[in-house]
């Protein structure tokens, strides 16, 4: 139970709270990510790896929330942190339902380590891979509150972190262009159609 709680705690945290926590992680020079990882390893002059990797000497830290080259990476890291535990919990639940006879039989036949994973676990949990992929695609496209608060209710510098739903909300409800907002919503229909087809195909396979 305590380990499961650690896995599920990120998904229990509301995205708006998560945005504030990650503001401390991504905050300029004193943010956790820069202070613990980027500056010690990749600083142009003082980093362990920076000079070796040819990083320019003027490089000091990454401005995760302002540099348009890194804004989306920050969004991805936030989403990764939020969903990894939940997906692990789903796999844990699905693995618990696999009959142990199958695993014992495989071990008797000589399956070990990676072979056991590749030939037994992966095929039996294939539907969880597909389910998780579809669920995460839906969450990614429908993502709103995390990016909305982290980037100050906008898409960030040069709209590098602009999400579809943020754009829809701004067009329709902040600036009053309801027609444009409806068009944005309808333009997502082909994607949902593909996801529905993928889901039904998974059902039949």
């Amino acid at each position, binding site marked *: 139970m305590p380990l499961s*709680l650690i896995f599920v705690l990120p998904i229990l945290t509301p*995205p*708006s709270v998560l945005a504030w926590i990650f503001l401390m992680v991504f905050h300029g020079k004193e943010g956790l990510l820069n202070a613990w990882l980027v500056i010690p390893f990749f600083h142009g002059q003082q980093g362990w790896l920076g000079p070796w990797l040819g990083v320019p000497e003027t490089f000091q830290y990454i401005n995760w929330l302002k540099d348009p080259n890194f804004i989306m990476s920050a969004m991805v890291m936030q989403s990764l942190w939020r969903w990894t535990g939940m997906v692990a919990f789903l796999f844990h639940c699905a693995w618990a339902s696999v009959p142990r006879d199958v695993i014992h039989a495989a071990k008797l036949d000589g399956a070990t380590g990676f072979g056991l994973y590749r030939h037994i676990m992966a095929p039996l949990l294939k539907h969880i891979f597909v389910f998780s992929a579809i669920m995460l695609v839906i969450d990614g496209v429908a993502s709103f509150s995390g990016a909305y608060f982290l980037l100050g209710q906008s898409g960030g510098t040069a709209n590098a972190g602009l999400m579809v739903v943020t754009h829809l909300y701004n067009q329709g409800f902040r600036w009053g262009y309801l027609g444009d907002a409806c068009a944005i*919503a309808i333009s997502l229909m082909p994607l949902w159609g593909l996801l529905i087809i993928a889901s039904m195909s998974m059902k039949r396979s």
Partner: protein
Amino acid sequence: MLCSSFKQNHELFKPDQLLPSSWDFFAWKLLWQGELLDWGLGLWNAIFLSFGQTLLAAALGFAFAFHIHFSHGVKKSIQTLLAVTAVLMPVQVMAIPLVNIAQKLNLYDHQLSVLLAGSASGLGVLYFIQAFKRIPQALLDAAVIDGASHRHLFVMFFHESKAHVLGFLLLHFMLSWHAHLLPLLLLHTEQQLPLPLSMRSLLDSSLQFPRAVLMAASILLISPPLAFFLLGYKSLKLSLTAVLTDPDG
């Protein structure tokens, strides 16, 4: 987050300082006084909205799944497809029609609009369809032979699926607790807003504002879903284990 609720502003962005310099409850006192944020009302609104949506979604999902379970052929396929579509179509895409409908029903800026919009969930239908597959067909046949009506079968299904109902209640509660867009669009008055939206005013505050208050409010915000998760963990795990087993649907 807990340690940050005791820190001053200048300590918050010091990555090498995990613990606060002093364990002062200033932020908690400020929050308790309710001057910066009416956290009690916000928390109550959040619990009411999440619980309401969850109970309605569970009731609707259970009823539709029960109906689909006894359907056959093309009708069953169409109904299942509609449920899948409802799951895959996020509410964000339906945001504008939902606001229009709420306005036409005179439910704009009313919590009932959020309850109704949030309860229309295809997830419950699919979840309970999978759960009902666990009920032995022999049990159903014996009940029908003994003269059980549809109502009796409904009650029997509920008794057999109690763990799944509890698991779904927990899952949907967590999902609706995090839902941000619907209350943002459909609610306007400060007294109606759930706590995550009420906290927006703190997020937009100046740098002089003690951010520890935000951290303290965040801990309050996580507490209900955390408590329900701890209470319903076994049911959730049991239910997910059963639901995720059969790849058919």
